[in-house]
């Protein structure tokens, strides 16, 4: 079983929720927020293996190239430009789709791997942890996320997604059993939550919501969940204790009260799966 944690809005507490759930449920943890993977700060795994992630980019043999520009026309991402004398490749725009190689009439194009990031595999006691890291300046996260997900085995796993509802999030939640949407109780939080809800509904993924920094006075998320008939899995109070633990790089479940709360949330998530 796989649970994905997403949020729509950034900075709402996805990593807090994912790492604490992984710890309390003793599940594996995969950090798919490859632009800012920070779950390892809290779970502190020992990294035992690292692998590079590459995407195939075209290599054009100028001897064979007849400058027909068919590859340029085939490229949907403007990664190739044809001038009078040769073809220019803009590596960072290349999505590695291979269309240029397919259309080349003289087989002048071969593909070679270009490193865009890496994957760390580690262990924190019984919890197997993985994270993807996208190299700085690289624009494309999905290839790393896809590779991460290939490495995920059948054991129960928590997938920590990037903020927003972009390609990165779609790649990360594709094929998961349950989605946990973390939000904060602010109009901004609600706004982005709605977009995330639309996304998981469209992808037919059973889901529930966790309110982080919950504030009983401004309870707009509870109201929204009631109106939309969405499972409210739990609330994490707006509390200094949590901030102190977090700032020290500690898991909230080290505290008794939070431990109970996360256990409860974990059970509710399993119910969402059972009822779907």
């Amino acid at each position, binding site marked *: 079983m796989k649970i994905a944690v997403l949020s729509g809005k950034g900075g709402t507490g996805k990593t807090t929720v994912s790492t604490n759930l992984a710890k309390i449920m003793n599940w594996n943890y995969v950090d798919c927020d490859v632009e800012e993977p920070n779950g390892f700060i809290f779970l502190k795994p020992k990294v035992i293996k690292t692998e590079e992630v590459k995407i195939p980019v075209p290599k054009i043999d100028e001897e064979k190239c007849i400058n027909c520009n068919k590859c340029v026309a085939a490229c949907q991402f403007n990664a190739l430009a*044809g*001038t*009078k004398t040769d073809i220019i490749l803009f590596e960072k725009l290349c999505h590695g789709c291979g269309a240029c190689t397919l259309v080349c009439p003289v087989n002048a194009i071969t593909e070679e791997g270009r490193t865009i990031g890496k994957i760390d595999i580690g262990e924190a006691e019984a919890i197997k942890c993985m994270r993807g890291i996208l190299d700085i300046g690289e624009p494309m996260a999905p290839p790393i996320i896809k590779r991460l997900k290939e490495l995920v085995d059948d054991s129960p796993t928590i997938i920590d997604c990037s903020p927003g509802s972009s390609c990165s999030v779609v790649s990360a939640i594709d094929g998961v059993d349950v989605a946990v949407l973390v939000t904060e109780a602010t109009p901004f939080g609600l706004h982005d939550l709605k977009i995330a809800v639309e996304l998981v509904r469209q992808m037919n993924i059973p889901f529930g919501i966790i309110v982080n920094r919950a504030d009983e006075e401004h309870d707009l998320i509870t109201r929204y969940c009631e109106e939309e008939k969405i499972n409210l899995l739990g609330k994490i109070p707006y509390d200094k204790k949590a901030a102190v633990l977090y700032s020290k790089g500690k898991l909230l479940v080290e505290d008794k009260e939070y431990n109970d709360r996360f256990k409860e949330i974990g059970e509710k998530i399993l119910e969402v799966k059972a009822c779907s």
Partner: protein
Amino acid sequence: MKICVSSLGNEKGAMMDSRFGRCPYFAIYDTETKTYEFIENSGVTASGGAGIAAGQQVVNKGVEVLITGFLGPNAMKVLMGGKVKPYHGKGGTIEEEIKLYEEGKLEIIENAGPAHFGMGK
């Protein structure tokens, strides 16, 4: 010789657009026939690589001189490869810009500006 001006409209009285990759039209003036051709810039709707797409169109049209505001690094690379000479326009109408060029009053663009200059402007 063909001179291209990045343009906000599709008539010769239209103003030059200081963006290159995301300008809506290219005005292409033929110095021999003294006629204008206007083409839509497919770079406008590109999700990425607008400067490259725009540069490609200009190169494909056989343009030798380009008048625009700023060029990003990728567009610059394509134009250099296509032997197009880029000039800084003064922000007037298409006709005025071409006149300025013919009088030798425009400066050549030596260096590329920052990437994504024209995004959202």
